[in-house]
């Protein structure tokens, strides 16, 4: 049942991506700004402009532009960026790892914080401290990532300048990287000073992304823990003399985890979408920051490529969450 649902979801991916592509394509073509006007040097002749329009296919009718683009995308060619004059595929490939590392760090931090808060909250059940924790949690949940980014920038970048507030790596630490996964690569090659500097740059933006997500995980998990603790099996374990902490750890937590993963997993896409602004605020060189520049520069091929990249990531994440839930849940293992 569950597996057939996943298969059905797989089948829906191509039409969804096609829809995303079509909407972006049409939207961008009604933009009043002319991308060619932004790239020509002053004094270019009308003939030059016409040639450039033809080079980027902008002189064709909308439908034939779309079909050409679809055919190219299907064969892995996402076109050339108009403003950066490089292949979109290469540009996105160079920036995507930065965003993935940032998002992964944020998710890890959020899980750590969220699970801790939920467990502490469960142990405090029924006390005044629990109310305080819940209220604080609601506050963290209500403020979105980009506002946290601005608050953290103000707090730890300006008022109490402890951490860098811009970029991915100190330019003085210019080292050659073989991949674009700087953090993973520097950890694997044991260049710990570089890894430490990368982490210092990532700390504030990833914390901004992590805080609202951590609050969400904490709220969901805490509710599930409370529900699981009231179940018969937990009560029976209690009467058999196991301590509350042991039961929470061994019986209640694994059972509460499955619905929490199912409910919060989907929200990871929101965190990923949040990278757009948070990267912008901290001048972090990921695809989110690049996307805003692409919009400002009316760089059609780049915007299309970036939005498709985000859409693929969103869909892949949703699927991964479903698979994870299926793997975690013993009842679905034989299904």
């Amino acid at each position, binding site marked *: 049942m569950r597996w057939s649902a996943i298969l059905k979801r797989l089948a829906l991916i191509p039409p969804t991506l096609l829809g995303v592509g079509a909407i972006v394509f049409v939207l961008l073509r009604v933009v009043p700004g002319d991308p060619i006007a932004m790239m020509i040097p002053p004094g270019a002749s009308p003939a030059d402009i016409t040639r450039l329009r033809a080079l980027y296919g902008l002189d064709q009718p909308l439908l034939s532009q779309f079909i050409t683009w679809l055919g190219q995308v299907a064969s892995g060619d996402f076109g050339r960026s108009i403003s950066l004059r490089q292949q979109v595929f290469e540009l996105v490939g160079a920036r995507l790892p930065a965003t993935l590392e940032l998002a992964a760090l944020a998710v890890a931090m959020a899980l750590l914080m969220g699970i801790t808060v939920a467990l502490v909250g469960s142990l405090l059940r029924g006390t005044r401290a629990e109310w305080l924790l819940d209220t604080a949690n609601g506050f963290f949940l209500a403020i979105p990532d980009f506002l946290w980014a601005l608050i953290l*920038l103000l707090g730890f970048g300006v008022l109490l300048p402890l951490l860098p507030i811009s970029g991915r790596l100190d330019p003085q630490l210019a080292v050659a990287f073989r991949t674009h996964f700087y953090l993973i690569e520097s950890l694997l090659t044991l260049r710990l000073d570089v890894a430490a500097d990368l982490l210092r740059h990532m700390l504030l933006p990833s914390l901004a992304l992590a805080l609202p997500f951590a609050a969400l995980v904490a709220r969901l998990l805490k509710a599930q823990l409370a529900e699981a603790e009231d179940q018969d099996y937990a009560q029976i374990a209690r009467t058999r003399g196991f301590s509350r902490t042991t039961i929470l750890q061994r019986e209640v937590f694994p059972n509460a985890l499955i619905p929490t993963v199912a409910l919060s997993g989907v929200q990871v896409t929101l965190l990923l979408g949040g990278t757009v602004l948070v990267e912008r605020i901290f001048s972090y060189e990921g695809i989110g920051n690049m996307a805003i520049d692409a919009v400002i520069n009316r760089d059609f091929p780049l915007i299309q490529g970036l939005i498709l990249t985000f859409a693929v990531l969103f869909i892949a994440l949703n699927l991964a969450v479903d698979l994870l839930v299926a793997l975690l849940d013993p009842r679905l293992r034989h299904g």
Partner: protein
Amino acid sequence: MADLVLSGPITATPSRWRSALARGGARLWIGGGLVALLLLIALFAPVIAPHDPAEQDLMSAQLPPAFIRGGEAAFPLGTDSLGRCVLSRLIYSARTAVSVALIASLLAAVIGIALGLIAGAFGGWIDQSVSRLIDVWMAFPPVLLSIVLAAVIGAGLTSVIAAIVVVDWTRFARITRAETQAQLARDYAAAARVLGLTRAQALRLEILPNLVPLIVTLLAVEMGIAILVEVILSFVGISVTGDTASWGGMITEGRQIVYQAPWIMALPIAAVIISVIGFNLFGDGLRAALDPVQRR
């Protein structure tokens, strides 16, 4: 028989309202208070603001707030880099925020609820196509979609509102669709059919009133979101232009001189946070107050 049905499901007697208010608890009161405060500030901006928000005084630019050394009593919260009164701009920005919040969330609600109701009630290919449309929408990063949209329409308040409506109608559509299906499966919906109500009548008289608590809650939350989207679009440089004051615009300007004058960025951030928390608490409180399950 028909009269019985037409009397409507929510005929609130005063005691019912009172118990609903009690159920809402502190969240409803604090949230409602903050929202009311925001509305009042927006409404009476010209009365409260000490200066014209667009009035420039380059001689007294980047003054700190009056309670910090170097501040002037005439500018209680200091001035920005053009010498405009920060307090007055904060107050007038509430107008921008409230108009964006009200118009955008109501429009998004109308479109989303209509599509959600139709999809939930009629099922079949109609439901399939609305659901697919929602799926496609959900595959977009919302922030990026609103940025692209606002860029398409061009800067300005209308653009901000349009971006919010086009991006956020799915919030209402998804929940309305699911809830309509759930309500239609209940006995009272079947009873309405037995009584001879047409599908449209049943939707209007029976289903829609039962969706009200949910919709009101969503609306409150959506208004908070709308205020945030305005900030986002300002940050990218495609929100209101020129002299129109907005919190997003103030934050963006403040970001550029954050080392010299951190309060210019900090104060509008605080205003946004208070408003968003207010709308969230209000929504939470309303849900508790209006939830039909808890009404018994």
